[in-house]
């Protein structure tokens, strides 16, 4: 592996680790449950993709890369499913149902309203 490739791996890994550590810190700092949920997304998208890029730069297209692609795909879809399921579970625990209730007055963004609520 050339010096440039080695440097690229170090930079990619550094970004992945820093993003993951910041998200872990945010998880502990944020006061609200739903704010906390958002911090899982960055790890499963940004960090895992940078790790995949680092593996591709170091190994090329081989067994390790293919397995890493599978793991990244699992993390990507796992996070989306788990985030939805966890938020839904919290809503069911608090309200007894998870669908929107007209009495809740949830602000809805109408199409063509320019983002006004």
């Amino acid at each position, binding site marked *: 592996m050339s010096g440039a490739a080695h440097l690229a791996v170090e930079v990619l890994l550094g970004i992945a680790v820093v993003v993951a550590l910041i998200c*872990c810190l945010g998880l502990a700092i944020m006061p609200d449950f739903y704010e906390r949920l958002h911090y899982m997304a960055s790890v499963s998208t940004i960090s895992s993709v940078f790790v995949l890029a680092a593996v591709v730069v*170091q190994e090329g297209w081989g067994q390790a890369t293919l397995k890493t692609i599978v*793991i990244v795909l699992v993390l990507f879809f796992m996070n989306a499913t788990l985030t939805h*399921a966890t938020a839904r579970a919290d809503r069911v625990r608090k309200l007894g149902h998870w669908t929107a209730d007209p009495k809740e007055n949830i602000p809805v963004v109408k199409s063509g309203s320019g983002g006004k609520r």
Partner: protein
Amino acid sequence: MNVWLIAAAALMFGLIPCGIVVFTRDAMNRLVGLEMAGMIETLILIFLAQGFQNPNFYDLALAMALLSFGGGLVFTRFLERWL
């Protein structure tokens, strides 16, 4: 000690905030901490597999990702219905 093992060691510090959330918050927040810890551990196992230059270790990371997904869903359903 290569850059992958250093990254794995650094990422282990990410488990500390997850542990704080798991040990100090209520049940739903604990679940979020657990799910985050599962993802961090998956990345750590990828780093260790690459750091030790053994592609077989990637199976551990894959198993960790799949099992934390299943475990998270089970806990979610359990907390939603019975707790």
